[in-house]
């Protein structure tokens, strides 16, 4: 038995960390429900004396935010699905096969993760412009997928590594082709990995600003991080509306993780081998 002081200390530290991590979120929410006339007049307060959801109404009805939001959903979902498909195929190959040039290819995948993105914005723009892929959601999906696949391949590869080879060998002895074994035996067991990869790529694409800003100049193809910048004008920043938009932008990510969290829980392979 450990003393009560020990646990108090542990929980105290955890509480402190949680408060520290969640405070900005709380502050954004607080600002989003503070009426404009109170924002600067009440000083620094944890909660405004009067609460109003007017900012949310304005953002939804009188801004392009719904459009940005829809664009972000399309781009993030498209990127997540495409990246995960490529990563699953690549990760399986890396995990299960030995082939010529395997090590250099893995090295190359790693190298792509080493450059600051700012460095390659211009060349990417130069590549996409003649193809008509700037100012287009498709262009963004392609770029995001290209940048997310390498890491996702490592992620999926490690999940495949965690599944015993004997399982697909057993399936092949049972009369399955390698592809059938992959679909019917391995893939169901990789669901946690697929969920994690989807979640990782989705959030990365959802919050990406640099490329979304540089490759698009039209409102029609802007995603919500770019849209948030629209609340910053030459003479003022509309903090209330900006925070309201930000809070709303969190909703799909939360829903997404709520849907996949069941699969994120590991342990599906328990009982496959040994006793």
């Amino acid at each position, binding site marked *: 038995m450990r003393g009560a002081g020990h646990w108090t200390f542990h929980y105290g530290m955890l509480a402190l960390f949680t408060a520290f991590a969640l405070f900005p979120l709380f502050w954004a929410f607080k600002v989003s429900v503070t009426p404009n006339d109170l924002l600067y007049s009440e000083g620094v307060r944890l909660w405004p004396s009067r609460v109003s959801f007017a900012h949310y109404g304005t953002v939804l009805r009188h801004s392009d935010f719904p459009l940005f939001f829809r664009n972000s959903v399309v781009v993030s979902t498209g990127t997540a699905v495409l990246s995960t498909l490529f990563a699953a195929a690549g990760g399986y190959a890396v995990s299960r096969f030995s082939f010529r040039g395997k090590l250099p290819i893995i090295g190359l995948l790693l190298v792509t993760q080493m450059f600051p993105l700012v460095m390659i914005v211009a060349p990417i723009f130069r590549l996409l412009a003649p193809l008509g892929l700037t100012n287009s959601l498709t262009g963004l999906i392609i770029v995001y997928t290209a940048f997310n696949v390498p890491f996702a391949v490592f992620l999926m590869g490690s999940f495949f590594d965690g599944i015993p080879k004997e399982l697909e060998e057993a399936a092949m002895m*049972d009369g*399955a082709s390698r592809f059938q074994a992959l679909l019917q035996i391995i893939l169901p067991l990789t669901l946690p990995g697929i969920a994690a990869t989807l979640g990782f790529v989705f959030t990365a694409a959802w919050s990406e600003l640099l490329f979304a800003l540089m490759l698009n100049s039209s409102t029609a193809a802007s995603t919500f991080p770019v849209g948030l910048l629209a609340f910053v004008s030459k003479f003022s920043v509309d903090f209330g509306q900006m925070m309201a938009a930000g809070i709303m932008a969190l909703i799909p990510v939360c829903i997404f993780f709520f849907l996949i969290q069941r699969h994120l829980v590991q342990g599906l392979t*328990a*009982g496959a081998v040994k*006793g």
Partner: protein
Amino acid sequence: MAAIGISGIEKNYGPIPVLRGIDLDIADGEFVVLVGPSGCGKSTLLRLIAGLEAIDRGELRIAGRRVNELAPKDRDLAMVFQSYALYPHMTVADNMSYALRLRRTPKDKVAAALAAASAKLGLERLTERKPRALSGGQRQRVAMGRAIVRHPQAFLFDEPLSNLDARLREQMRFEIRKLHRDLGATSVYVTHDQIEAMTMADRIVAMNEGVIQQVGTPAELYDTPANLFVAGFIGSPAMNVLQGEVVAGEGGTTVRIGGAVLASVSPGTRPGPVTLGVRPERIALTAPGDGATATVELVEPTGLATIVHLDLGGQPVKTFTTERLSLKAGEPVGLRLEAGGLSLFAPETGERLVAAKA
């Protein structure tokens, strides 16, 4: 059911040879055990038969047909893995019927085959469970069930009992033998446990360093090991290996250790240094002065038997007897070899000398 023919099979992992020219014919319905220390190539040979590894050179035939290039799924073999490799997301019933469902077997036939197999293995009440809700022994049975539910050309076993405790292993050994008797299926069974090999095999294939050392019935390997490797690997307690000398004298050709005559051998035996192999239970202890004289080092009672460690002219010798002995360390005893209990090996090669006869 089918015979399996293996001729001149070689396999390398990179520059390292794992199998160096394996020739073996397994008869239809035979239970063959591949046995050897880890790294001897027995599992690799099994995986080559299964089709899970490619054959570098040589030919593999199942039921007379060359199958070198055939994918595992087309070889119609069933395999029981050491880790069982049960599909964790499927119930016991789904695990066992997966092969049949892949072949689009009609539902009623699947159900019948499933019922028959689970009855045979005592799994009837577990069919709706997932593997993680089973004990080690039950998982082992499901792995067996997955193999017998369809009627494959042959069964391959890759150390299937290694993960079970001793008691369960003994029981499963018996059950696998019984299954084999009932189904009459050609079986290739890999193990590093020589007791499993002795108790289960119709024929044992002893392997070391990618080469077959000896093929024969358990009794043949036990009584007439082809070389010192087999002599040392098969049998527990292990065969005594002693350095001696063959001397042709007036009283006939004899084997001696340090001047003491141990046994007479057939006159054709080449005189000179020789390596002797003697099973511990083939040595009888006598009164001092009767036969060769040795000193007692240690007495180990096991309940069933007594193992006596002796010193014979500086060489350690073990004897095994079911008699209750009252010997003490340091005591001198006489020892005699029972007729037919002596194997002679060439000291340079370790190969059996054919002429040996006690």
